[in-house]
């Protein structure tokens, strides 16, 4: 081989590798983040946040208009009075105009990824980050307070009257003063907490599951434990927020078992074995509920007797809790043919959405 030719080939190969290297974004994979209002669904996936018309499945806008691989979105957007709040994996938290997707402000003091849905109370926005901090932001995006821990936060904050409840990867459920961010109490669980607790306003009790194969009821006033379910190995890891239905508490564990517990005592009312792994939360409908199995199956059951209503198979994996908008059940698909699949309440396919390139 002649020397110049060899040099050109080497230079070409090097340039190709270097350019590929330049294109490196955050090295992380996650499931789409999904939220909905009455007429639209908002999905965060890869380089964009999309607003999609829930009736017909067409894209209304995307943010940013021209995405880059360096900025990736997986956090479910928070929707509040014409605004969309969403964090990215480039350590920024954005406020967008819900009408057109234009950015109003961004907060860039975070040092890690924003993966959880934020929460809002009046003008205060609480944004958890995997940089081990929870950020409380003012209406203009400036920092009001910050709470730091030993591990990151993947769960959505739960806002109570005076407190912010945070489920942490450090196995702790903590209550923070909403105004100052000071720690009010903390309760240790057996495993890491991936999802937010459910709150019963009538009793003031919190219900949260962990990767430690347990579901607990905790008093929101002082963090004291009411009851624990799973001590005898009845359940596996829990990745989603439990669902309060009447006097009961419903949740699915990783192995695919669905439980209904008495909220007051934690005793089992009924169980249902879906036979396959479940990561997503349960979607409640009027007199039925829908579960999304990881293997790509959407199932609806009658709430009264758990009799199956319908089953739909989807090409792809399901890790995201489905949402309802415009009387459509919308499910976000990971590694599937489409990013979103919509069904009517009887389970008939209505539309699918694949982002245009």
């Amino acid at each position, binding site marked *: 081989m002649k020397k110049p030719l060899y040099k050109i080939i080497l230079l070409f190969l090097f340039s190709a590798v*270097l350019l590929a290297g330049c294109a*490196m974004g955050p090295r992380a994979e996650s499931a789409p983040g999904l939220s909905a209002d009455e007429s639209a669904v908002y999905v965060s996936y890869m380089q964009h946040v999309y607003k999609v018309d829930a009736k017909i499945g067409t894209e209304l806008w995307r943010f940013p208009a021209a995405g880059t691989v360096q900025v990736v979105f997986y956090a479910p957007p928070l929707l509040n009075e014409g605004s969309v709040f969403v964090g990215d994996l480039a350590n920024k938290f954005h406020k967008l105009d819900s009408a057109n997707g234009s950015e109003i402000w961004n907060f860039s003091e975070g040092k890690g990824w924003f993966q959880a849905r934020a929460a809002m109370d009046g003008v205060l926005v609480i944004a958890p980050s995997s*940089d081990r901090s929870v950020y409380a932001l003012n209406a203009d995006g400036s920092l009001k307070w910050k709470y730091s821990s030993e591990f990151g936060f993947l769960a959505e904050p739960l806002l109570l009257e005076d407190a912010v409840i945070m489920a942490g990867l450090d196995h702790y459920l903590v209550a923070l003063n909403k105004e100052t961010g000071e720690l009010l109490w903390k309760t240790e669980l057996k495993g890491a907490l991936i999802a937010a607790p459910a709150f019963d306003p009538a009793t003031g009790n919190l219900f949260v599951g962990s990767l430690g194969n347990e579901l607990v009821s905790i008093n929101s006033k002082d963090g004291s434990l009411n009851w624990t379910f799973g001590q005898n190995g009845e359940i596996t890891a829990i990745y989603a927020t439990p669902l309060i239905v009447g006097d009961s508490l419903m949740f699915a564990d990783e192995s695919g078992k669905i439980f209904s517990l008495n909220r007051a005592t934690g005793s089992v009312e009924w169980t249902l074995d879906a036979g396959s792994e479940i990561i997503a939360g349960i979607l409640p409908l009027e007199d039925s509920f829908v579960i999304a199995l990881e293997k790509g199956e959407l199932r609806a059951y009658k709430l009264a007797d758990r009799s199956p209503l319908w089953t739909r198979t989807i090409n792809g994996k399901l*890790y995201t809790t489905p949402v309802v908008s415009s009387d459509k059940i919308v499910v976000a698909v990971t590694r599937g043919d489409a990013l979103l699949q919509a069904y009517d309440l009887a389970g008939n396919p209505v539309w699918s959405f694949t982002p245009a390139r």
Partner: protein
Amino acid sequence: MWDTLIIQPFTNVLLAITMVVKNFGVAIILFTLLIKLITYPLTAKQLKQTAAMQKLQSDPRYKKMMEKYRDNKEKLAEEQMKLYKETGVSPFGSCLPTLIQLPIIIGLYQSIIKAMAATPLEIFRLERLIYPFLDATKILPIQSRFLWMDLGQPERLPILGIQIPVLAIIVVATTWLQSKAMEPPTTGAGDQAAAMTKSLNIYMPILMGWMAYSLASGLALYFLVSNVATVVQYSAQGRANWSRLFPWIKTKAPEPVPAPAPALPEEDEDDEDEEPEPPKPVSKPSARAAVKQQRPQYKRKK
């Protein structure tokens, strides 16, 4: 199959080390060193074979053969194979250990990525990889803090308000150090392999530095430990070419690794003039002389 045989065991060993030492950064260092230790026999074999091949290629008769059959590739290949056979040097001898090591190195890299699960989906996948006898509830999540770094994020050290990518700089330095220490002696002005090595000595540190700058610092830490361990392995084999790095150091030239074959066979009469002279003793050998001394000298049978 790949996950079951390579990724799962590797990830579990890494997590088990993490449980023992209670520090993921230290676990990455120990795990990388452990893998380097396990693959050391393969590395040693590869180095021996490479040395034997270099020895053969630096022989004047090999060069003459290359020159003679320059325009006849078929004949050249035939003659080369004949020579390989006669001397017992396998042209693929250094490739095979590398090929065996490759899945191990890839597995090591991937298991570190798996263990640094940072999203719910990655945690779920990691949880499924953990063997039942390791208590996943106690392991997860992994504390990714190590020294000033968050091993799940690209590393920067704030110095006087400037975010300095210290680890990336060290990775560039150690990759260059490794390349220079491993650089084989040149066999002539037109040595294409040497030219390629020279180019790689420039490009590889830049590439590795860029990756260390952009990727999670846990991986950059792995690059760093791997570089240092490789240099140490080369030194242990007497193959590190320190004179290239530090010309002012009068190092004793590493002894050439003996080829697994006897000296080259007799050649035609006209080769007589080509016989290399034995190296002249030099009282104060320069770096160049030290390198020259490394070149094998074949003695002809009388």
